[in-house]
C-alpha cells in the first residue's frame, strides 16, 4: 500500500471542494471495508481519500415519512440490522443482514459504500432493486434521483461521476408486497455468492399483480429481470404451489435476458441452471410469504 492523504471534511461543501471530477485516485471513503481490500491488493492506489464520517447529518440516520423510508448513506449495516422499524417495515433487509459478511464488517460497512462499490457479488443492492429503492445523488451541481437498478453501468462501474456522492436511499414502503432474498453459495457458507436473487411480489388473491426481480453475482452487474417479471405479472397462482410451467417460462425469460459469467464458483451453464432452480424457489417462497414480509 502506498502513502495517501486522508481528509475528514465537516460539510458537503467542503467535501465537494476536495473531490475531483477527473481524478479517480481521489475518492470518498465510508466504512472502508471494500476500499481497503482494493488498496491492499494493489488494485487501487489513492492519492487522497475523503472520509465521509464527519460530514453533516444529511448522510446519516433512518427516517420514516410519507410511505417511504430515507436511509442515510453513512448508515452502517449494523444500524440497519438492529433497527426495529426496519425489521417491522422491511423485514427482508433484516433477514439479509444475517447472511452478509460478519459482525465486524457489518459494524463499519455502510449503505452508501455498498451501493457505490458496484461489485456484482454484493447482496443488498439486489434487495434494494426488488424493493424499488432510489438513490439520492448529490454534487456541486445539485441533487438527482437514480433508481438503484439504473445505478450500475458494468463490472465495478456506476453511473456516478467522481464528484458525485450518494447521500441517501429512498425505499418505498409497500405493506402488501412480499420479498425474499436468496444467496446461493457453492463452496463455503461465507463465500461470495455464485448467484444472488431478490424477488418482490404483489399478490391480489391468486393473481400476481406485480413483480420485481433482481439478480447479481452471476452477472457483470446487479440486474433487474424485466422479461421474467413480465412472465409473472398477471399470472394466476395457487397459493399452495406455484405452477412449474409458469416458473419454467420465467426461468427461460430470465436466461434469455442476461449474460451469465463463469468464475471459480461455477461455470456459466451451471449458474444458469442455478438461476432457473432458485428463481423458482424464490418466487414460490415470496408467493407463500405473509404480506409485508
Amino acid at each position: 500500500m502506498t502513502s495517501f492523504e486522508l481528509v475528514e471534511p465537516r460539510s458537503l461543501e467542503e467535501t465537494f471542494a476536495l473531490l475531483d471530477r477527473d481524478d479517480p485516485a481521489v475518492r470518498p471513503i465510508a466504512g472502508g471495508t471494500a476500499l481497503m481490500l482494493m488498496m491492499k491488493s494493489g488494485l487501487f492506489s489513492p492519492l487522497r481519500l475523503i472520509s465521509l464520517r464527519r460530514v453533516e447529518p444529511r448522510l446519516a440516520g433512518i427516517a420514516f415519512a410519507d410511505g417511504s423510508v430515507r436511509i442515510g448513506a453513512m448508515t452502517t449495516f449494523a444500524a440497519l440490522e438492529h433497527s426495529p422499524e426496519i425489521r417491522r417495515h422491511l423485514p427482508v433487509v433484516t433477514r439479509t443482514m444475517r447472511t452478509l459478511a460478519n459482525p465486524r464488517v457489518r459494524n463499519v460497512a455502510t449503505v452508501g459504500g455498498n451501493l457505490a462499490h458496484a461489485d456484482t457479488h454484493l447482496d443488498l443492492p439486489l434487495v434494494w432493486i426488488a424493493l424499488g429503492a432510489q438513490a439520492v445523488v448529490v454534487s456541486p451541481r445539485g441533487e438527482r434521483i437514480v433508481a438503484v437498478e439504473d445505478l450500475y453501468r458494468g463490472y465495478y462501474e456506476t453511473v456516478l461521476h467522481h464528484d458525485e456522492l450518494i447521500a441517501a436511499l429512498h425505499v418505498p414502503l409497500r405493506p402488501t408486497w412480499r420479498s425474499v432474498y436468496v444467496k446461493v453459495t457453492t463452496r463455503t457458507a461465507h463465500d461470495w455468492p455464485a448467484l444472488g436473487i431478490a424477488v418482490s411480489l404483489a399478490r391480489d388473491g391468486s393473481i400476481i399483480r406485480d413483480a420485481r426481480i433482481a439478480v447479481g453475482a452471476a452477472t457483470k452487474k446487479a440486474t433487474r429481470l424485466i422479461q421474467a417479471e413480465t412472465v409473472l405479472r398477471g399470472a394466476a397462482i395457487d397459493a399452495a404451489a406455484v405452477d412449474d410451467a409458469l416458473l419454467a417460462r420465467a426461468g427461460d425469460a430470465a436466461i434469455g435476458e442476461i449474460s451469465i459469467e463463469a468464475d471459480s464458483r461455477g461455470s456459466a451453464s451451471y449458474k444458469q441452471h442455478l438461476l432457473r432452480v432458485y428463481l423458482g424457489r424464490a418466487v414460490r417462497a415470496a408467493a407463500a410469504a405473509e404480506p409485508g414480509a
Partner: protein
Amino acid sequence: MTPEPMPLSQVGRSIPRLEASAKVTGRAEYVHNLRLPGMLYGKIFRSIVPHGRITQVNVSAARAVEGVHRVVTIEDIRSIIPNPYFGPAFHDQPILADHKVRFAGEPVAVVLAENYRVAEQAAGLITAQYEELQAVDDEVEAVSASVFVHDELKPASTFADLQHLKGQRGTNVALDYRLRHGDAEAAFAAADQVFEHSFRTQPVMHTPLEPFVSVADAANGRLTIHTASQSPSFVRIEIARLLGWAENRVRVKTAHLGGGFGSKLYIKLEALVAALSLLTGRPVKISLTMEEQFFMVTRHACTLKIKSAVDKNGRITARQCKTWWNGGAYADIGPRVTQKAGFTAAGPYDIENVALDSYAVYTNRPPASALRGFGAPQTAWAYETHTDLIAEALNIDKLEFRRRNILRNGRPQATGTVVRDTGLEAILDRLAERLAWDQPFDRGSDKLRRGRGIAIGFKAIVAPTTSAAIVKINADGSCTLYCGTVDMGQGSDTCMTQIAAEVLNIEAESIQVIHPDTDVTPYDMGTLGSRSTFHMGNAVRLAAEDAKSKIAALMAELNLPPGSNVPLVELFRRKYGMQAGNIIGTGSFHPAYAKPDHQTGRSPQVTPFWGVGGTGAEVEVDTETGQFRVTTLVNVVDAGVPINPKLVQQQISGAAIMQFGFTVSENMVFHEGQLTNGSLADYKIPGLLDLPRNFINEWVEARQHDGPFGAKGVGESATIALSPAIGNAIADAVGVRLTELPLTAESVYRAMQAAKGKPLPEQ
C-alpha cells in the same frame, strides 16, 4: 520398556495448553512481532511468467525510491553464497531466480528498505523481461514432455535412494519409486475379476494463519535466524552448508508458530534473509502476505491409477497402483512424500501381490511438499473410492468387504514390514457403531437424498529420524525442559511436560519449556509427520529418566535411603553447602529402521509406527442442484494411549476440518500456469458454519509398545480417510461417482446429469 505408572498420573490428564492464556491475552511471542535495531524490511518481486529465461531485470526506479537501501538479485546473493541452491532432497532451488524462472510467482529480486511500505512500493516499480519458454503443467504429461523444468537433477547427498538420479538430464521425474511384493502380474492373469479406476486430486495450500516470516541478524562472525520454522535444526544445517560455516556459527530460534501443517519445513525464507543480512550487515526481515503464501509451497495435485484383482470370496489378491505427484518447480520434500505415500498406496489391506510405482514430477507450478498426511490423503482418495466401487460391483456390504480384507496386526504390509499395535479393525468397528451401520437408513426424499459412506486409511511415519532432549533440575528442585519440538498450535509443549512430569512425579504445569533455539536446545529432526509425541516424547522420557537416576545417585551419595522424601532443594544444599548446582538429564531417541531395497522397495522395518484413521459420513444432496451438506461426520483415529486426551481430540477435529476443506472447497486453480484464485476471498477454507451438525471426533486405544507411555502421533490421522468417506456417501445418496477432488456442487450435478444422459454443457 515403560516405567511403572506414577502414583500421581500426569499422563492421561487433559490439562489446558500451557500457552493458552499468553495467546488469548496477546502476550505470546511470535516472530512477526520481532523488531531489531537497524532492521531492514524486504519485499519480494516475483515472476509473472511460469517458465522463462530472464533477459532483463530493471531495478533502477525501485532503487531511486527514498528509503530504499538496496535492491538485490541473484548476482548479489552469489557474492555471499557462491552456489546458492538449497533443498532437503535436491539442491535445486535458487535463493532468487537464477537467470530462469520456473513458476509464476517465483522470487526474482528483493527490495530492502527502512520500512515495509517503502519496500512494497519500490518492489512495484521493478520490471523484468523474459524470453518465455513452454511450460509444463500436468503431472502425467510432464513425464513425457520435451520441455524440462531443470536441465539436470541435483539430489542432495543426504538421501541414499536419490543418488542414482544424480546428473540425469532430459527428465522431469525427480523420483521413480517402486515396490514389488509377490507377483502381481501372475495374480492379475489368474484373477476372477479385475477392477481398474483413475483418480485425481487438486493442488491446495497449507494456509497457516501466520504467514511465513524470517529475520536474520548477521553480526560478529555469527548469524542468528529468528524464524517461524517447523525444523530449526535442519535450517541450521542447511544454512551452514550454504555458507560453508561450522554449525555452531549459526543460531536458529523459533517462537510460537501460528500453524505450519508442513509448510514451514526445511528452508523457506531463511536462506534469503541470511544472505541479505550478510550482504548488508544489518538485520533483515521478510514477512509474506497471505496472498504470497500461495507461491511458497502447496500440496501435490495427483493422478492415481489403481487396479485390483479380486477372487470369488471377495478377497483382494493383487493390486497395482501408479501415482504421479505434481511436484511443481522445486522438489522440496516431494520425493519423500512420493516414497512414503507410495508404499502405502495400496491401502491398509492384506494383499499378497502388490506392485506400486510412484513418480515425483517437476512442473512449472509453485513447489509442492508435505501437508498434514504426507501424501496419504491423496492415495486414500483413490484406494478407498476404489474399494467402494469393488464392493458395489461384487454386491458385498462395504464395511464387510473392508473387514474381509483389512490388514491385521501381525501380518506383513506390502513393504514386508509386519504391522503391529494398530487399531485398524477397532476403527472399523467404532465407525460401524457410530453410524449404526447395521440399522435401516433414512434415504430422504426425491429432492433431498441421503447417503452414507465410510473409509479407512493409514500412513507410515518418516524414518529414520532422531530427537534429543534435556531435562534440567534446578537447585530449588524446579524443572526446565529443553526440547526442539516446535509448538505451532498442536500443544506439544503441554504434552512434553506431561511426559517429563510423569517420570519425575511432579506436576506438568510446573515445568518450563525452552523453545527451539539451536544454541540451547538439542537436535530434533523437525516437527512433522506426526513424529513428535513418539520421537521427542521418547527422548524427553529418557532425559527425565536420566535425571531421575542421577537424583537417586545423589541420594545414595548423601546416604539417604532410596525413595526418601527429602526435598530436592535440600539434596542440593547438603551436597554443595548452599542452594546451588543442578542435575542434567539427557535423552536421545532413534528408532530402528531398515532401508528399503532399491529394486523391490521392501524393508522389514520401514516405519516406527503406523498412523491410522477412519471416517464415516452422512450427506444430504439437493438433487436439483447437486448442492450437498455433510450432516454427520465421524472421525476415529488410533491414538495409542493418549498423553492428553483433550489435545488428541483437538488434533482429530483440526485435521478433519482441514481435510474437509480439501474435500469440498479448496482448490488452487491454474490457467496457463497462472494461479487464478490466490486470495482467501477466492480460495475458500471452511468456516465454522460449514461444519457438520454432528461432528464426532474419537479415538481407539491401541497401545504403541515402544511409544512414550504407549502413545503415538495423531496429528495427521484424521486427514487420511475423510475425502473418500464423503465421496462414498454422495455416491450412496445419488448413485454417481466423482473421481476428482474437490467434490463441488457443480461436479455432483454434472455427474448426475451425465448419468441421466443429459450432460450439462461445458462453459
